[in-house]
């Protein structure tokens, strides 16, 4: 806030904030991956293997997204009726036609929109970061924080199916059982969560090598001088 002028990055100063405990450490002789003096977690300027792992998780998630939406997630059997299989979408439609429009919208957003938007957004973030694009960095940073925040709400339908299966078990009258679509769906949610946690938003800001080190030298020193006492044994 009070800060003005060019941004200096921790990487340029060779300092790093421990991702686990927040301790600011000057990486002197220690190399990347040295243990944090306070909490022993490895100190890194960036997460490791971001692209290979994120892409692997993301591609698996997008493959499973197909059966998650096409296969039924639950089967309802009632007396004197044919068994009825529900996919995620038909469950939304059922809520809508039953008059719970607000809940239908919530479930639609949590189960269909969020996973899809999350997969597309992460792919966009990975591609732009890999190309070191300078396009809409602030916006990309913000959208990453949003998908991190909303991601786990997609688990909603898993809990709905489990509860309904527990409640509706009247042998002859009616019963509800989960179907394999629920497994694929649960896997999609877990995989997209893992993929977005593996992504490192600092990569959004890593400029092409030529553009780096534009900060005036005295500015860098002013901050670096403060960094030193913070690391080994602070007050």
């Amino acid at each position, binding site marked *: 806030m009070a800060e003005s002028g060019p941004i*200096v990055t921790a990487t340029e100063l060779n300092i790093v904030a421990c991702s686990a405990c927040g301790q600011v450490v000057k990486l002197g002789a220690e190399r990347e991956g040295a243990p944090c003096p306070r909490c022993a977690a490895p100190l890194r300027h960036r997460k490791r293997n971001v692209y290979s792992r994120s892409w692997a998780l993301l591609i698996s998630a997008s493959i499973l997204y197909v059966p998650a939406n096409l296969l039924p997630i639950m089967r309802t059997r009632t007396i004197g009726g044919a068994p009825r299989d529900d996919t995620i979408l038909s469950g939304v439609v059922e809520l809508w036609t039953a008059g719970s429009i607000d809940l239908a919208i919530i479930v639609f957003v949590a189960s269909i929109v969020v996973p899809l938007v999350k997969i597309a957004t992460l792919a966009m973030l990975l591609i732009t970061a890999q190309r070191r694009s300078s396009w809409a960095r602030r916006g990309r940073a913000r959208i990453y924080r949003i998908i991190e925040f909303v991601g*786990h709400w997609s688990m909603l339908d898993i809990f709905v199916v489990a509860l309904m299966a527990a409640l509706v078990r009247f042998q002859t009258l009616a019963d509800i059982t989960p179907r394999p679509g629920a497994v694929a769906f649960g896997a999609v949610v877990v995989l997209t969560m893992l993929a977005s946690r593996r992504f490192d938003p600092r990569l959004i800001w890593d400029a092409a090598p030529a553009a780096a080190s534009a900060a005036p030298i005295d500015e860098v020193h002013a901050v670096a001088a403060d*960094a030193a006492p913070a690391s080994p044994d*602070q*007050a």
Partner: protein
Amino acid sequence: MANHAIVICEHCDAVFQRPVLAPGVLARCTRCDAPLYRNRPLDLDVMLALALTALIVLVLANVFPIVTLQVSNTEREATLWGAILATYDTGVAFVALLAALTVFFFPLLQILLYLHVLLPMRWGLRTAGFRYSMHVLRAMQPWSMVEVFVLGVLVAVVKLAGMAEVTPQLGMWGFALLTVLLTLLNSFDLHQLWDIAQERCDG
């Protein structure tokens, strides 16, 4: 205070001098707008009270049924474990495992670890395995999904309302309260717990 002289934005790596903030004020990164830190002193007593209450509420929420369903003369009630076992019985063990971990085991582990870390700290003692507990606590946070489960209960109730009489029970209020307690508990900055622990051990 154990405040570091500088702060590094976790989201974009920018380095800032760490200004002293007015109480309650949140500092944001000027480059990427991510929250940096808030001037909110950590209150160990409040955290302990929240964790203890959360433990009691978690037990109650699991013991009492969440909803009951009435069809003609038969009545069924569902607890969380009833839902997990029903899903397991019908052959989708992965779904049962997800529900068990995200609604029961991870929240329980979170609360127990908070108690394990906070109780000795409150009285200035050393916590056994502090580092390890704190690392697990941090890793657990995104995977504890009680709040999503509560919304799930609501959706299930509405879906079944057309079919039979559904009545919310004590367990449902338990999970709703647990959501509030865990949200409050997780709103504290774990980095500050590290700072306090370090201060006590060094000084």
